[in-house]
């Protein structure tokens, strides 16, 4: 209702602008309708989706397809956890590959050197990544926006270089080979059709847990920091603490995804965790929709599909990503799933209510 009213005063200028808003409205119809239906029958729809996902390997009957499905699920956790940082608390992390790396290496090292089994290592790797997330959050607590982004980027590269050069532990340029496959009640889980269930389990757990956290005092504190840090502090939100916790939470799940990834590939090396990987994850978040729970999931599906379709032309894949991101920024800056009235939707200048007699605003910041 109110968004309609507001939008009416945007496009009254030119023909071209009217066309543009028409294109935007196209997205509004579809995604907001789906959302409305979903909200109504949440439980039933969730159950049906989970059931379909459970029988999917039997329908697909193809290790190739299941391999894609595995990647989609894994990246939905990576993108989703990045979204908790970038989309919900409004921090700007572009070095998410670093946390992914920590998780993968932790699992690989503990599994190959000490023979510890996969399942506890999922949590251990997550915890390691969370600790690193905490450390990186310390110097960045005072930084914002692009400055924070540069620190996370640098940190991600530092981790990769450490992994590349600390040969005695990480295998150096050779990486770590023969990472043992997980077992489940004596059954070895190695091919994609089986491994799918591990990624599915992690993805569902991630969504369920994150959904709950976001709907609590903790999630609200994160969002309040994104919206207005000074106001949040004036209401008693310990912003430093919550920003740290936020980084740790995102890092934890990236670590878990990394831990699941290492024995899936059975081989890891530092060049799997370059900045490109970080941008790859970031693009999923942007395309799917920051600040929404399902956005990164949709982003992961779309980006992975594109990756598959353009596999024959791997070089031009990046061009497609770039084009897609630019189109998204124009068409739906809030991402495919982003609410029509979300933070990322319309330019700030277009959203501000008219201010009468706006008083001088000196001295607040």
């Amino acid at each position, binding site marked *: 209702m109110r968004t309609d009213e507001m939008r009416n005063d945007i496009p009254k200028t030119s023909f071209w602008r009217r066309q543009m808003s028409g294109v935007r409205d196209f997205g509004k119809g579809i995604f907001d309708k789906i959302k409305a239906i979903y909200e109504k029958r949440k439980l039933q729809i969730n159950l049906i989706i989970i059931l379909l996902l459970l029988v999917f390997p039997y329908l697909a009957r193809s290790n190739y397809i299941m391999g894609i499905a595995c990647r989609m699920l894994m990246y939905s956790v990576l993108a989703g956890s990045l979204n908790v940082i970038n989309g919900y608390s409004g921090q700007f992390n572009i070095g998410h590959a670093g946390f992914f790396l920590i998780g993968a290496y932790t699992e690989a090292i503990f599994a190959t050197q000490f023979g510890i089994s996969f399942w506890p290592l999922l949590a251990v790797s997550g915890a390691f990544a969370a600790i690193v997330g905490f450390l990186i959050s310390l110097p960045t607590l005072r930084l914002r926006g692009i400055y924070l982004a540069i620190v996370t980027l640098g940190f991600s590269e530092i981790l990769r270089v450490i992994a590349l050069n600390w040969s005695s532990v990480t295998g150096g340029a050779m990486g770590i080979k023969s990472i043992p496959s997980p077992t489940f009640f004596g059954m070895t889980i190695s091919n994609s059709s089986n491994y799918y269930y591990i990624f599915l389990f992690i993805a569902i757990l991630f969504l369920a847990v994150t959904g709950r956290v976001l709907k*609590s005092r903790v999630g609200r504190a994160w969002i309040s920091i994104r*919206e*207005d840090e000074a106001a949040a502090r004036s209401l*008693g*939100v310990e912003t430093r603490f919550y920003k740290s916790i936020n980084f740790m939470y995102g890092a934890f799940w990236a670590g878990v995804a990394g831990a699941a990834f290492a024995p899936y590939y059975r081989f890891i090396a530092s060049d799997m965790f370059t900045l490109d990987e970080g941008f790859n994850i970031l693009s999923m978040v942007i395309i799917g929709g920051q600040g929404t729970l399902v956005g990164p999931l949709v982003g992961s599906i779309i980006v992975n599909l594109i990756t598959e379709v353009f596999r024959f032309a791997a070089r031009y894949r990046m061009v497609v990503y770039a084009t897609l991101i630019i189109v998204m920024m124009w068409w739906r800056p809030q991402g495919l799933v982003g609410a029509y009235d979300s933070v990322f939707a319309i330019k700030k200048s277009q959203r501000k*209510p*008219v201010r009468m007699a706006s008083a001088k605003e000196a001295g607040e910041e």
Partner: protein
Amino acid sequence: MMGEVILEAKEICKYFGGLKAVEKVDMQVEKGDIFGIIGPNGAGKTTFFNICSGIYQPTSGDILFNGESIINQRPEHIAKKGMARTFQNIKLFKNMSVLENIKIGFHNRTKTTMFDAIIRNKKYRVDEEVIVREGIAILEKVGLSEYRDTLAGNMAYGLQRRVEIARALALDPQIILLDEPAAGMNPMETHALMTFIQNINKEGYTIVVIEHDMKFIMSMANKVLVLNFGQKIAEGTPEQVKQDEEVIVAYFGKGLDLGGGH
């Protein structure tokens, strides 16, 4: 209880480089006061508030809240001690609904941890229930019930100011600092706001309010502090202040209406 000092400023100075934004300002706010701060543009009123609420550190001087020094404390800790504030340039959580905005105000009064939220234990459920119930009660009190699910950023200007006050009330503070709460309001809204502030004052909230609108301050405040160029030029009851030479010069120099006079 009356007469007990709740918020005290001692020779507060704040310099921005060579600019003396606040210079040796003393203030004593007593429990139950509606304490007005007036002064021309750039007098240092907002800066003074920012020092009281911990956003700025003073260059020198001390702030006592309930007898305890609160300089060097972070804004969030001062808020926890029972001081709430609003901002001259409204700072709402624009992409959250009005009720969600209020919910942040309950942050201090609830203790749900991430773990509680994940397993949805009793603590979580009780906290959420209390927040929603009391949040709705606050919305009713400030007359915003019908807007509970509206995005705060989409509200009209005058209503946004009310949301901000409601959010401050959710803290259940002892004292509320209001920075130009009537700015941008029409006379009717201003009048409603005055009644509202008087009502919450009667409920026991101490109020410090910055306002340009002289009628507003003169008819509501029981004590007024006048700042000009960072310095205190007068203090006292509205009647005393109105007759003060320096105040008249400061204000008539600016061509402002003293209100009530003619």
